[in-house]
C-alpha cells in the first residue's frame, strides 16, 4: 500500500513540477487603451531665455592662445574674405656651448654649419592635402625671425615681425605634405643668436599663388616642432635638436605659448550683442542655466529638453561646407562663477558616459535657421549631480575653432526680438501614482 502511495505521489509530483516549470508569461496589452489607465501624463513647457538662462556670453579668445592641438598656417581667400595666419615657434632656451666630461669649462659655440626647423604635418582626414586645401601644386613655407622685445601676450609686437626678416624657406610639392618637413634656416642668423645669447623665435607662413592652408602639430597635439642644428666650438662639433620651449631665466614660463597660431589678416572680432562660436582666433559661447527646481530638482522626470537657438547667417568666409556646433559640458562646481574659468573645465559629455552624448549640429554658419540642441541627457546628469556639485552650464564651440575662420552667430538672451532669443523646450512627466496612492 505504501509503495503504491508513493508511486502515485511521484506521478502527481511529476505533473506538478511540469506545471511549475512552465515559463511565466505576463506581458499583455491587447485590451489597451480601453482598460489600461494612462498613468503617465506627458507635459510640454517652453522656458524662455529669461526663465531658463542665468547668463549667456561670448568668450573671446577661447580656448586661450597656445592651447590648440593643431596650428594653422594659412594664406587664402574664401567667399571674398582673406585669411592669413602665421605660426610662432619659440625656442627661448637653446644650447650655446659644448660641455664635455672633463673639468674644462664649457666651450661656447662660435658658428653654425647647418640649421633647420622641423615641423610635423597633420594629415587631413581625407588622407592627403588636395586642391581644396592647397590650391597649387606646390606650397612654400617661409620662416621669419619674429623675436620681439615684448611680453608674452603682446601678440601685436610679434605680428609685425612677420614678413620683415626672412631666415629660411622651403618649397614642397602638395603631394609631399606629409610627415616631418625640415625647413633650412640661415646659419648666420642662428649662429649670431647663439653667440649673442639671444632667444630664437621663429614665425612660419605659407605662400601659394592661389591659396593654401596647412595644419601642423603643436606641443599640445603631442608632436611639437623642433630646431635642429650643427655647430662648432673651436674644433669641437655639436649636433643637437631641441623642441619648442619657453624656458628662460626671466621668470616662470607659460608652456602653452611655446607654439601658437597668430592671425595676421582676417575678420575682426564678432560684433557685440551676438553670441559667437568659432573663428580665428576662436571664441566660444558660455551658457549657464537656471532651470526651475520644480522641473529639474523634483520627482518630475524631464524626458526631452531641446535648446533652440536662432542662428544669424554669417557670410564671412562663406562656404557651403558644414561645420559642427559642438556642445561641451562644464564640469565645475557652482563656486566657479567666472565663465572663462568655468569653460576651461568643460568636457565632451561623451567622456563621462556615452549616454550623455549630445549630437553636434552640422550646418553652415552662413545659414539663417534655428538650431536644436538636445540636452535631456545633460539635464538628467545635472539632476543626479545636484546644483552644488555641478553647475548647470554648457559651452558651445565650433568644430573648426582655431582652424576654420567661420563663426557661428547666435542670437543671445538680449536680442531685441524676443522670438530670436534662446528657448528651452522641455517635455516632462510628473511622477506617476501608478493608479494607487
Amino acid at each position, binding site marked *: *500500500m*505504501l509503495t*503504491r*502511495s*508513493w*508511486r*502515485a*505521489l511521484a*506521478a*502527481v*509530483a511529476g*505533473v*506538478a*513540477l511540469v*506545471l*511549475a*516549470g*512552465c*515559463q*511565466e*508569461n*505576463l*506581458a*499583455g*496589452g*491587447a*485590451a*489597451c*487603451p*480601453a*482598460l*489600461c*489607465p494612462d*498613468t*503617465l501624463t*506627458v507635459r*510640454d513647457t517652453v522656458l524662455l531665455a529669461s526663465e531658463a538662462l542665468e547668463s549667456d556670453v561670448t568668450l573671446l579668445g577661447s580656448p586661450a592662445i597656445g592651447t590648440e592641438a593643431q596650428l594653422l598656417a594659412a594664406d587664402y581667400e574664401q567667399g571674398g574674405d582673406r585669411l592669413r595666419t602665421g605660426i610662432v615657434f619659440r625656442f627661448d632656451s637653446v644650447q650655446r656651448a659644448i660641455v664635455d666630461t672633463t673639468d674644462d669649462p664649457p666651450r661656447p659655440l662660435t658658428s653654425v654649419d647647418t640649421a633647420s626647423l622641423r615641423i610635423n604635418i597633420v594629415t587631413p582626414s581625407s588622407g592627403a592635402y588636395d586642391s581644396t586645401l592647397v590650391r597649387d601644386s606646390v606650397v612654400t613655407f617661409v620662416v621669419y625671425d619674429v623675436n620681439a622685445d615684448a611680453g608674452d601676450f603682446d601678440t601685436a609686437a610679434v605680428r609685425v615681425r612677420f614678413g620683415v626678416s626672412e631666415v629660411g624657406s622651403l618649397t614642397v610639392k602638395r603631394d609631399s605634405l606629409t610627415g616631418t618637413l625640415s625647413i633650412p634656416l640661415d646659419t648666420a642668423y642662428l649662429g649670431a643668436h647663439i653667440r649673442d645669447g639671444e632667444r630664437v623665435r621663429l614665425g612660419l607662413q605659407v605662400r601659394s599663388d592661389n591659396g593654401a592652408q596647412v595644419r601642423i602639430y603643436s606641443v599640445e597635439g603631442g608632436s611639437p616642432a623642433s630646431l635642429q642644428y650643427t655647430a662648432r666650438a673651436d674644433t669641437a662639433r655639436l649636433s643637437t635638436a631641441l623642441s619648442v620651449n619657453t624656458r628662460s631665466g626671466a621668470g616662470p614660463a607659460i608652456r602653452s605659448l611655446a607654439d601658437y597660431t597668430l592671425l595676421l589678416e582676417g575678420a575682426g572680432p564678432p560684433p557685440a550683442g551676438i553670441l559667437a562660436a568659432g573663428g580665428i582666433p576662436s571664441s566660444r559661447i558660455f551658457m549657464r542655466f537656471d532651470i526651475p527646481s520644480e522641473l529639474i530638482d523634483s520627482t518630475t*522626470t*524631464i*524626458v*526631452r529638453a*531641446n535648446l533652440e537657438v536662432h542662428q544669424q547667417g554669417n557670410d564671412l568666409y562663406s562656404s557651403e561646407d558644414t561645420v559642427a556646433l559642438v556642445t561641451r559640458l562644464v564640469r565645475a562646481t557652482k563656486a566657479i562663477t567666472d565663465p572663462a574659468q568655468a569653460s576651461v573645465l568643460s568636457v565632451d559629455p561623451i567622456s563621462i558616459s556615452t549616454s550623455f552624448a549630445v*549630437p553636434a549640429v552640422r550646418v553652415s554658419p552662413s545659414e539663417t535657421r534655428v538650431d536644436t540642441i*538636445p540636452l*535631456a*541627457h545633460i539635464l*538628467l546628469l545635472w539632476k543626479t549631480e545636484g546644483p552644488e556639485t555641478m553647475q548647470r552650464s554648457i559651452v558651445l564651440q565650433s568644430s573648426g575653432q582655431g582652424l576654420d575662420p567661420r563663426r557661428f552667430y547666435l542670437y543671445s538672451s538680449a536680442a531685441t526680438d524676443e522670438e530670436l532669443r534662446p528657448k528651452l*523646450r522641455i*517635455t516632462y*512627466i510628473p*511622477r*506617476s*501614482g*501608478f*493608479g*494607487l*496612492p
Partner: protein
Amino acid sequence: MRHSLAIALLLPAAISVRAAAQGTLSTQGFGYPPGQLSTRATSLGGGLGETDPLSPINPAAISDWVRSGLYVQYSPEYRSVESTGASDHTMTVRFPVMMGAVTAGNRVVIGLSTSTLVDRTWETSRAGYTYSGSDSARFEEDFTSSGAINDIRLGVAFAITPSLWIGAGGHIFSGDDRLKIQRISEDTTYTPFLQQSRLSYSGTGVSGGVTWRPTPGLTLGASGRVGGRIETFRNDTSLTHATVPSRWGVGASFAGVSGLLVAARADWVGWSSMGDLGRPGLGVTDAWDMGGGVEVSGPLFFGLTLPLRAGYRHRTLPFTVGTAKIVENSFTFGAGIPISGGRSRIDLGAERANRGSLNGISEKAWILSAGFMVRP
C-alpha cells in the same frame, strides 16, 4: 522562485508572485482575489470553503486537520484576453495558500496560514506616440506591478462537543507592491523614462466561526471576519488608510451517502471598505461569492480510489471597470490522491473561469491547481 516548487515550499508566506496584465477585467484596482480556497474546495466550486480545514476561511474548520501537518498550494493561471483585433495569452504563477496546523489534545487545533487576499501583479506593454508641439515620437511602454496583500492568520479551533467546534483567528494583512514604468522612445532626443516605487500594506482583522455536525455526514459551517485598519506606506510614510473588508459566509457539506459528497457555500465580502485605500474614484464593490459541487469516488489510481470533483462558482470581483461590475462564472473539476493511508493527500484541480465581456473585451482563464497536504 516562481518556477520551482521546491523553492516555493520553503517560502514563509503564500506570496502571490505574479498575475496577469493590468489591461484585463480581473486585475483592476488592488488586484484579483484568488479566493483563499484550497485546491479541493476550489474543485467543488468553493462549496466546501466553510468546512474545509485547508481553506483559511473558517477558523473552526481547522479542527478537521485531526493530525498536525502542512499544506502548500500552487495555482498557475492561463488567461486569455480578447479584444478587437488583438488577444493576449498570459501565464501567471501563484502560491495562494500555505498552511500548517498542530493539534493539542483532542479538543484544540492551532493553525497558521498565509493566503493571498488580492494579487496585483501584472505587466502591460504598449506602444504609442508622444506629441510635443508639431512633433510626434513613437514610444514603447512597459508597466509592471508585482505584489499582493496577503492574509496571515493564526487560528484556534476548540471543541465544545465532539460535533461542535468553534474557532477564532487573528489576522495580519501585509504585503507590498513593486511598481515600475519604463518608457523608451525611438527618438533619441528623448531620454528613457523609468519610475519605480514600492508600496507596502499593513492591516489587521479578527475572525470567528463555527462548524457543527448535527447528524453523521452533514457538516454546517458559518464564519465571519471583521476588518481592522489597513494602511498603505511608501517607505515609512503612511499614504492612505481604510478598513480591511469584513466578510460573512455560511456553508454546508453532506456526505451521508457512501461515495458522495455535496457541498455549497455563500460568502459575502464588504470590499468597498477598501475604497479609501486607493485614489479617489477607485471602483470597488461589495461582492457575493456562491458555489457548490460534488465529490464522488472515482476509479482506482495505482490501487487507490480517486475522489473526483466538479463544481460551479459564481462571484463578483471586487474591483470594477468604471462602474461596471465584473462577474466571474467558473466550472471546476478536480481529483484527490490519498497518500500514506489517507494521512496525506495531493489534490489536483482545474477551473475554467469566464469573466464576461465589457466594451468589446472578453476574458477567460484556466486556473490549474495542485495542493499538497502532508500529515506525518
